[in-house]
């Protein structure tokens, strides 16, 4: 093989083309201007709708509200009430339970994603659509459908249970089961989104690893635990963080499926539900803001803890 002839011949036109392409846009200070301009809408949106309201909420948590927006500075009063409020304590416990159960979605979606990536798996597109459907469906539609399924007297779930001789509970109105019923819907609803992230993670794993493992006699299960899971840890970390944050914000299912008059409400009231209730139903904006700040702190602490712990189990590269 003569190296000189083959190596240099195509190099010249490529280099020339690169120079020609670059010429109209040289990396001067202008490109920074462009980047800023293109980022501006997103940054402005973030600043106006996320960051500024956060500071506003912190400010409002030190105020006492009248009707239609009037408020006066009240110092730490809201926080003093917050500490003594047994509803806040219940809301923290309920939110923690929902968060814990929602973590089930992580292993479940890994398994779903892994099964869909199996070579020769048929109908992947259909499954992917089916699993993703809850993500794009309106929460109100999801909640109403499940509400009918969970109905104690006429629901499909209890009808199926009765076929095997089990007398099902009133899932959503029984204080003992309501929080689990809601959490199950939450897990069901989040599998689709997680699955998509895991699928792309799995597709990033080089096939060579599996081929090598197969030559060494490793079965599918062994490959899953020794190749797929360890190499998926960056995705698992991301999904876990997102799942915890989402579950802390649980509201719509409680609002739509349980509701104010249910005997199960004290056992399912989450922090965001309490925020809504105090702020919008009972017109106590300042106190609601204090609940919001509490939620912000909880989110910060849990996320920071996860970022610290990730060093022990997440493998990059």
């Amino acid at each position, binding site marked *: 093989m003569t190296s000189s002839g083959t190596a240099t011949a195509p190099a010249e036109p490529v280099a020339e083309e690169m120079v020609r392409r670059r010429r109209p846009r040289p990396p001067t200070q202008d490109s920074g201007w462009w980047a800023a301009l293109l980022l501006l809408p997103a940054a402005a949106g973030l600043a106006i709708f996320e960051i500024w309201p956060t500071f506003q909420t912190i400010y409002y948590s030190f105020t006492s509200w*009248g*009707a239609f927006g009037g408020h006066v500075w009240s110092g730490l009063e809201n926080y003093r009430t917050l500490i003594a409020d047994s509803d806040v304590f219940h809301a923290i416990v309920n939110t923690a339970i929902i968060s814990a159960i929602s973590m089930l979605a992580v292993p479940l979606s890994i398994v779903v994603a892994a099964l869909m990536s199996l070579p020769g798996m048929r109908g992947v597109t259909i499954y992917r659509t089916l699993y993703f459907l809850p993500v794009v469906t309106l929460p109100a539609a999801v909640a109403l459908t499940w509400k009918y399924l*969970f109905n104690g007297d006429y629901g499909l779930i209890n009808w199926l249970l009765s076929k095997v001789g089990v007398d099902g509970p009133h899932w959503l109105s029984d204080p003992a089961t309501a929080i689990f019923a809601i959490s199950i819907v939450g897990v069901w609803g989040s599998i689709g989104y997680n699955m998509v992230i895991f699928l792309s993670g799995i597709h990033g794993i080089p096939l060579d690893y599996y081929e090598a493992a197969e030559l060494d006699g490793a079965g599918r299960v062994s490959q899953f635990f020794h190749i797929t899971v360890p190499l998926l840890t960056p995705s698992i970390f991301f999904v876990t963080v997102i799942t915890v944050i989402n579950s802390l914000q649980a509201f719509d299912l409680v609002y739509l499926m349980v509701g*104010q008059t*249910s*005997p199960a409400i004290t056992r399912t009231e989450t922090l965001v539900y309490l925020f809504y209730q105090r702020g919008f*139903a*009972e*017109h106590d904006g300042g106190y609601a803001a204090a609940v919001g700040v509490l939620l912000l702190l909880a989110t910060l602490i849990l996320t920071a803890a996860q970022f610290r712990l990730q060093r022990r189990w997440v493998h990059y590269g």
Partner: protein
Amino acid sequence: MKSVRRWTSLLLMAPLLAVAACSSNSKAGDDQPVTLTYAIWDQAQAAAMKQIIKEFHAQHPKIDVQVQVTPWESYWTKLQTSITSGTGPDLFWMTMVYAKYYATGGGTAALDDQIKKSKLDMSAYVPAVTKAYTINGKVYGIPKDVNGFGLCYNKSLFDAAKVKRPDDSWTWNDVVSAAQKLTNKQKGVYGFVAPEADELSWYLTVPQAGGQVISPDGTTSGYDQEATIKGIQFWTDMITKYHVSPSLQQTTDTDPLAMLTSGKVAMRYCGSWEPEEIAAVPYGKANIDVAPLPAGPDGNRNYYSNGLANSMSAKTKHPDQAWEFLQFLGSDRAAEIQAKTGTVIPAYQGHADAYAKAISEFHLQVFVDQLKYAQPFPASTDTAAWRDAATKQFADAWTGKAPVAEVSKRVAETMNQALAKEKK
């Protein structure tokens, strides 16, 4: 590069220019067309409201009215938020529950000047409703309707069980004994349904027992009074003592009205706005009828009645046009349209007959007959602050977890705290 910048800035300017152009076009003078927004919560009444608007528009071609229907569950949060942010509707339905809150907080406009100028006759409306929307001597709403209540019952189930149908001689005891005969656990039929829904449950029996939810001056809770507790006990007894009503879990899972219209319960207390919904279900239309609300143990027939009003936003940009429409909403003709659909008893007196005849299958006259026993709906300045909390706490009594007396006293404490906060 410079040209790119110029074009970009022009592009960014375009929407601003467009907005500026629009606003200069739509600068409205007095005789310019105006579109008012009118917020309501009941889909069932939307048709009647639209007909009223159509007739109004025929008389006032320059005023358009747009109806916004928001379900009750989110109506109040949406209304308050939108008024606070200045994007609220020009006119909206008001309930006695929120009347004082909106009037004293600056959400609704006082209408006295307009009433005087237009010489609107306020004595045409049911006095109890007018009174509820007169706050600190000023009128904050033109009465729309008034609520009556009755005992809805299933004729077929009564006849099949050979139980005498309810009439105006009935008291609580008759309800209990009939419910016991009508309950058939094998068939999954209950004689009565005792939901935990203040307006449709204990607000009807507490006054009959001589109790009160709130003191007449609106400053203290009445939930710790013996008579009040007795009125609430009537409902919990149906579930925990006589076992003639579905449990609270069941009434939470399935709407009690649906239980009635599907033949699962034989009796249910119902409001004058509900027959239209019952008649919409063929089984309901064929089998249900209305009897007078049974009297209390001592023959007392008092009950707490809500009634709606149409109010004007304090922040409306078109007060004159809004008043024109408000006047029409409170007119004789508007009352006639509402009565004929059978959805409500108009607060404008003299149209109760049209309501009573609206659905020939039902004896709607019973709702009208008891209007004279109506007591003002329990309300303080910020009613929502204690009303929701009460419902939440009474769940313990409905499920039999704690005695009514105990829960009721706990509710009184919470409510008194909330009322004390109002005075500050």
